[in-house]
């Protein structure tokens, strides 16, 4: 064991082997997974998975990244019989590799301080709920430990403000404050909600048993 070259060769061989096994071979496998055509009852076809649209959803994913949502929320549904994800209503079926082939990168997550978001777009379809929840989670989910994202909103007390083009105004529910309070989401908040609403693994795929 006095040869540097021997150690170096072994060191490289081991790490390259695992790189192939854990990353490159699976990646080859996923590359051969094209989006699947889904035929609806009315005869129309959809390609699944669906790519994020560039105007709101893709920037919304950037907001999700920038705010570090992944540190408390996963985006993967575990299979039946392994955890209670499906029983909790976090998805109709388990997640499979095909769900993620267009995600660059996927935010699978490793922590569930908050609930899973793989199907949040199906579970919470109303925009107003998302805006109120992001503005102050205590409004929609009392007792939550999620931080509030008030800095993504403009708050007005009293008269109803006029929102900029493409935005909207939401009135906060009556609280102890005597005057009505209005919030106007920023572009980032609108994008983030558009992204959250796009999260849905709703199609049946044949690889899901």
């Amino acid at each position, binding site marked *: 064991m*006095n040869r540097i070259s021997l*150690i170096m060769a072994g060191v490289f061989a081991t790490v390259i082997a695992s790189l192939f*096994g854990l990353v*490159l071979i699976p990646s080859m496998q996923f590359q051969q997974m094209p989006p699947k055509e889904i035929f609806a009852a009315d005869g129309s076809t959809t390609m699944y998975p669906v790519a994020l649209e560039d105007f709101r959803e893709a920037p919304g994913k950037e907001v999700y990244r920038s705010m570090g949502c992944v540190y408390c929320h996963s985006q993967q549904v575990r299979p039946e019989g392994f955890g209670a994800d499906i029983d909790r209503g976090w998805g109709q079926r388990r997640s499979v590799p095909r769900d993620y082939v267009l995600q660059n990168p*996927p935010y699978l997550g490793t922590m*569930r301080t908050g609930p899973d978001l793989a199907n949040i777009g199906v579970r919470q379809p109303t925009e107003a709920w998302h805006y109120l929840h992001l503005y102050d989670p205590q409004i929609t989910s009392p007792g939550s*430990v999620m931080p509030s994202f008030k800095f993504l909103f403009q708050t007005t007390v009293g008269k109803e403000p006029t929102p900029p083009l493409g935005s909207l105004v939401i009135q906060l529910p009556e609280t102890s404050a005597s005057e009505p309070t209005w919030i106007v989401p920023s572009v980032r908040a609108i994008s983030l909600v558009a992204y959250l609403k796009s999260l849905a693994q709703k199609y049946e795929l044949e690889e899901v048993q």
Partner: protein
Amino acid sequence: MNTPSQAKGPQHNFDTMDVSVRADIDRSCREVVLLWYASSVFWLLLGSVLALVASIKLHTPGFLAGSEWLTFGRVRPAHLNTMIYGWASMSGMGTLLWLMARLCKLPLPWREGLMIAGLYWNGMVAIGTWQILIGNGTSIEWLEFPWWISIPLGATFLVVIALSIKMLRERREKHLYVSQWYLFGSTIWFPFLYIGATILIHSPAAVGVAKGTANWWFAHNVLGLWLTPIGLASAYYFIPKVLGRPIHSYYLSIIGFWTLALFYNWAGTHHLIGGPLPAWLVTVGTVGSMMMFVPVITVAVNHHLTMVGNFSKLRVSPTLRFIVFGAMSYTAVSVQGSLTALRTVNETGHFTHYTIAHAHLGVYSFFTMIAFGSMYYVMPRLVEREWISSRLIKVHFWCCAIGILMYWVGLSIGGWLQGTWMNNPDIPFMDIVRRMIPYLWSRSIAGTLMTIGHFAFGILVWKMLRREGGWLVDPTLFVSRKEAAAEASMLKAISDAGVDE
């Protein structure tokens, strides 16, 4: 275990290294290693503060909630990255350079280059952390720095790899000690992993979930192939060196090294069990994790059997105290890690604070404690002064030791319950959030204790750098060498009498 004749050791014909040669080598490391060490302590303190902020936010979400910079999703990765790349990597690099010089029996070459590399590295961590706080983090766990940070990181490591090869080739000691294998391995592994994972994740080279496996291939290996080898290299050097007793079985150490190199790589996908991966990929991760029992047991046997009969010396030596704590934690964290990779355990422990507790047992209880121990040994030899206060060293040790135990126990129990509750669909999710609050408080309290310990260490290092300690009488040993010998024999007498463990 050694009989007296064995303890003497075979008469070797290695070059004898007298005091002055060793002092020259230590002196050659002085500026470089002190720069890396001092910077690491700065990042340790900053990382501790960020950790506390993040911890408090988890049970009191209103804390500092108005600031976008300090939202939980940014403070948490900022904490992780300052700790891993600032504290752990920089203190590890300091120890790595010093050990390389000592074991090759060569003065440290290219000192100016290594000083520049140290400044460069500090700048890199500072910019990376700032980028995370302003929202440019990648949200890829353990790789949150923007992709272009890999350029200065790679450049620094080119210097370190070239330096390692140069030193190993020119070494004056023919034998390559086990610590050198680990150190050399880690200098090659780490930049390969970092740059490889950055390319895979930020380019189309990997598709979909393969980016997730690339993430965990990297993140698991930062601990396994960068921090663990440095920690083990330190333990393999300092335990025998401080005790004055060769490592128990040198044969085992070679098996331990190569099985670590072979199996640790493959364990990363156990972070994705139950996820949307092909089944074989998860199985590979589980098998890799189980095989880790081999290197772990060999290392455990080696370290612990070297210590057997010498536990009383933990009272005498600060280095030994920290390093043995770390070495024991290594066994604990590795056994826990292998078990966590089992599907049945993972079903409950995954996605909960149980995993967070496990991660801290690895990076903190194992690596960080060994890093502290190494610095307690190395710094006085570089500065040629004593540590200023035994009492502060003890404060540091007990705050960190009790803090991490409390942290681990609290979050392991809390996390396990969290997982059990989550797997029971009859318990509403919001109830689980509420029931977790006391356990999250226990983390903040444990974290405060650890932070107090870190500040005690910060004071010690500050005083050391200002040369406020007493002189070292001879260049490598403490003033109280005779006292220590007397004390050790006294302790031995006590332990022989059965009063002590």
